């Protein structure tokens, strides 16, 4: 079955510290992977995506993610967190069944940033 797991429900880091948010997926074919961010009271914004090629992808706001097929992981990283990064982060895998395209979502990781 297709699924996405974000093991950490809530993470707190200090401003300026590095960050890694974990994402593991289960998908039979080549995965199309996404990270989205949801700031309080806002919609979801795409941070980055992986389809093929270089397994280290760069996104907006200084984020990057690395696809590791052997570990079925697509972890999100940022070297130095800013207070404005406090938000909910969602990992998703794109699934295709016939003409049906949909995203399968993780449950999200809530990030708090201490000053």
């Amino acid at each position, binding site marked *: 079955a297709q699924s996405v797991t974000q093991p950490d429900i809530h993470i707190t880091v200090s401003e300026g510290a590095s960050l890694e948010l974990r994402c593991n997926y289960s998908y039979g074919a080549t995965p*199309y992977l*996404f990270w*989205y961010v*949801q700031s309080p*009271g*806002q*919609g*979801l*914004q*795409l941070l980055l*995506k992986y*389809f093929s090629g270089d397994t280290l992808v760069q996104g907006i706001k200084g984020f990057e993610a690395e696809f590791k097929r052997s570990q079925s992981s697509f972890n999100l990283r940022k070297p130095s967190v800013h207070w404005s990064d406090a938000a*909910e982060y*969602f990992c998703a895998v*794109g699934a*295709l069944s016939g*003409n*049906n*395209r*949909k*995203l399968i*979502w993780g*449950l*999200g990781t*809530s990030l708090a940033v201490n000053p």
Partner: protein
Amino acid sequence: DTAVSQTPKYLVTQMGNDKSIKCEQNLGHDTMYWYKQDSKKFLKIMFSYNNKELIINETVPNRFSPKSPDKAHLNLHINSLELGDSAVYFCASSPPGVRTEAFFGQGTRLTVV
């Protein structure tokens, strides 16, 4: 220029009422979606439309009826609202192709009292 816009942003209504949420995208995308996000932030797809045709209809009560008058619009009508319908509803759209991401609206926070 708002890419995916939903109205209203907030909706407070009584149980038993019927309400609609409107969604419009000006990106020229061919696929539109409705998602429900519960209080625990869990995102659940409800419907997907491709070129005005219903493609995905997840396990959603038939009190929820999507309507797509054209490719740029996907409205959500809810009959006989229940307390459990309280959530944030997101509209989204995707361009053609398999390798495409979804673009989200700002959400509609529905509160049923």
